[in-house]
């Protein structure tokens, strides 16, 4: 299954995604430069983490104007799997492919640490292999991960089962203490109404190897592999 990792100037988790897909998942993957206009035969598209355009202005605010984003939007509209990780999530909200926005962390500081996440839905291509309520361990590394949206939008997200991950403590309870950035309702990741576009702040590509402290993130890539293969 062909994966594409979009490379914006300033992307810095592009190599990590590439490595996870190619060397761990053993699937074909290629980098797609932001100035390109076609995704070719890519079945799964990933917007990686980093600091596209230095995060100047706002995280993701400039990268959404990149030429490739037109093809990415089309890919999403066609209902095909699109995953935005960290800066990629920020780019998805900036470009309107996902609702809401990611504000500065409540602490006003960058934070890098392991967090626990509860998977809230298996209806997305990236979580279809994960049991609802399963607790995963992943790493966050961001300064602007504080998810925010209008109250009406938040209600819709909850009602439509669009919240994909919430920050929890190790035993799965959703508490203010488990929230690393002040996000609404402990949101760590969401999807669009159709479910094919997923954005999350934690880095699944960093949790694909037991040597580095866990393989929970690999489940997201395995999910999409299984789903696309069976469709």
């Amino acid at each position, binding site marked *: 299954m062909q994966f594409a990792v979009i490379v914006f100037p300033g992307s*810095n988790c592009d190599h990590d995604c590439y490595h996870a897909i190619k060397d761990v998942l053993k699937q074909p993957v290629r980098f797609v430069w932001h100035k390109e206009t076609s995704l070719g035969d890519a079945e799964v598209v990933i917007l990686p*983490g980093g600091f596209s355009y230095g995060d100047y202005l706002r995280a993701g605010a400039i990268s959404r104007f990149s030429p490739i984003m037109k093809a990415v939007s089309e890919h999403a509209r066609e209902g095909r799997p699109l995953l935005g990780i960290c800066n990629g999530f920020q780019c998805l909200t900036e470009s309107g492919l996902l609702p809401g926005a990611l504000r500065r962390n409540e602490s006003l500081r960058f934070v890098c640490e392991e967090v626990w996440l509860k998977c809230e839905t298996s209806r997305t291509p990236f979580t279809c292999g994960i049991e609802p309520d399963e607790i995963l361990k992943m790493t966050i*590394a961001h300064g602007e991960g504080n998810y925010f949206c209008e109250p009406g939008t938040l209600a819709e997200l909850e009602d439509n089962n669009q919240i994909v991950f919430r920050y929890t403590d190790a035993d799965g309870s959703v508490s203010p203490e488990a929230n690393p950035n002040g996000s609404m309702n402990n949101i760590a990741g969401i999807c669009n109404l159709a479910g094919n576009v997923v954005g999350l702040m934690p880095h699944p590509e*960093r949790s694909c*190897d037991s*040597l*580095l402290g866990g393989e929970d993130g690999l489940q997201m890539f395995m999910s999409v592999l299984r789903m696309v293969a069976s469709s």
Partner: protein
Amino acid sequence: MITTDTHATREMALDHGLSATEWEKIKEILGRKPNVTELGVFSAMWNEHCSYKSSRIHLKKFPTQGPHVLQGPGENAGVVDLGEGLAVAFKMESHNHPSFIEPYQGAATGVGGILRDIFTMGARPIAVLDSLRFGAPEHPRTPYLVGGVVGGIAGYGNCVGVPTVGGETKFHPCYNGNILVNVMCAGIMRSDAIFRGTASGIGNPVIYVGAPTGRDGIHGASMASAGFDDSALEKRPTVQVGDPFREKLLLEACLELMKCGAVVGIQDMGAAGLTSSSVEMAGRAGTGLLLRLDSVPCREEAMTPYEMMLSESQERMLLVAEKGRESEVREIFQRWDLPMSVVGEVTGDGRLRATFGGDEVAELPVSSLTDDAPTYDRPRETERGLPLDDPLDKLPEPEDLGATLLKMLAHPNHGDKKPIWRQYDYKVRTNTVTLPGGDAAIIRLKGTHKALALTTDGNARYGMLDPYKGGMLAVAEAARNICCVGARPLAITNCLNFGNPERPAVMAQFSSSIDGMAQACRSLGLPVVSGNVSFYNETHQVDIYPTPIIGMVGLLDDIQKRVGHGFASQGDVIALIHPKDEAPLPHACAHEYVWMETGREGGDAPSISLDAEKAVQAACRRGIEMDFVRSAHDLSEGGLGIALAESALSSLKSGLGAEVWLPEQEGRLDGLLYGEAASRILVSVSPQSVNALQEAVQSCGAELTRIGRVQEDAFVVKTPDNVPLIDLAMPDIVAAWSDALSEVL
């Protein structure tokens, strides 16, 4: 014909930080007075920061050779062979003066500079470590400086996407007026694709890439070559502003360019910008350079040749390409949206010539700027910095040793540094095997079974007590840290932070410290492959303690054979690896403890036998390699007491504590618990493996002594006759430790 309408004068030379003698020497070399631009070039190349004029004769004492050394000192970074076609490029640099004046940008551009030193060698940076020294925690400026420096390192490193994986942060009033920000970077490369800063091939184009030049940072290198007084903060405009996004583009563009084969030589425009990069590249190749300054991309209007030559604008590189391949270079840099401009060519006349607006504005022999730069054997006079009496003698023996432990753990020197390192992205690039805070960081090498071990270390108090021993101890401890994770030390970089070299006492410290380091390097087989000297760390004529910081790289041949410093399992035996024929814990001054209790410093630096040290390190590595050792942690400041607490606090399963009996030894029990004996490693081992480990340790010429066991929940230290000295619950220890940085960050 050189433009001479702007003759420099003696007064201008003095204003540029040159001495009267140096001014005379310049006139003698040229056979005329320099113009203002030329004077600027001389002052930039002959200042302490670029010329190493006070340190050069001493630095020659370091061993720099080894079978695995691919590149020693003199280049942008040292390079060491790792086998399997891979090599590591690494270096450490200081950014002390700018970081004191403007902590965020000072630290950020410190990171930027060292990253460029690494990728200019053709290596991809894979890890950053920071060795930081701040003033007293209660000093009013300390929180501002800590917040700014940590923020700057995070802001720059996180954005570029190079993980900050380790380092150390310490506080002492000797840094109240001069903080230290030393940044080490390591990069990975193919061992057959090393790039160097040489301008060879007459007629080859000289190409400027990266950010346009502005007026920022002019005389930055000169600022770093003088001490501070009340006007220090007025120097703020000389600190450059970093743009990590541009650095990331430059990094990717340069690495891509190096693959295409058009690059002859390449160098970062660091301190003294265009001047030092062009002069050093020509100097190494024995060539000359013609620079057409009209072609230099400028950010500001009406910039003069003087400003262009001396600007320290960040994120710029100078490279020499093969003639006729300019368009390939242009194509790659256009793709990355970076300015690229051919600014000159390599010449055969051995001169640095610069033209601007049709005039020749500088015309200087390259060798006059490099080889003829003054070197000084400055006067040295040994002065004892601290009293020889052990201040422990004046301290009444405390009734509650547990309280002293909690007090030390609650001090920022020993407390949990997580509030610092959680601001760094220590995991990007998915190679970081251990969390920051261990004895050494472990970075896996993808595609192999190997990993790098990286550490920085330094103890200024030992340097102040005895510079020679302090130098030895710094190297020995760094190597011990590498061995504590199971790796084999390979080579060293260093940052030598000292006061004003014009003071004989400082120069004596510097010279002795290097003697000590060099001795330890020779004994332990560790070449010094790169480094940096930072003098003039003084304010109001008060110098910092001599602070040589060692950055070390080690190699783990099998990444599975590694340990951390936290206890692994309840019931494991706790033991000390120590030199044979020595007590497990001999008498040694409890410097850190006494200082925290009384504010006094004195006594002797720890004794060290390098042969014994070598045996202890080998024993630790062997124990890890044979899977006997389950945790290893070296004893340093705070001795056994602090090492035990740290191993408990970092245990794999939270809540693990210890029950330990102090070994028999004459003298006070508090002195024994916190005594800072060198060459000691605290290990934990499963009960079934203790005897086997003992054999392995002895076969390496060292000794193993059991002192206790890992237990749940409680932290207990007893006298040899089983009288409890410390009996604390782990949650109380955790509470004291984890909140220690709250007053400074």
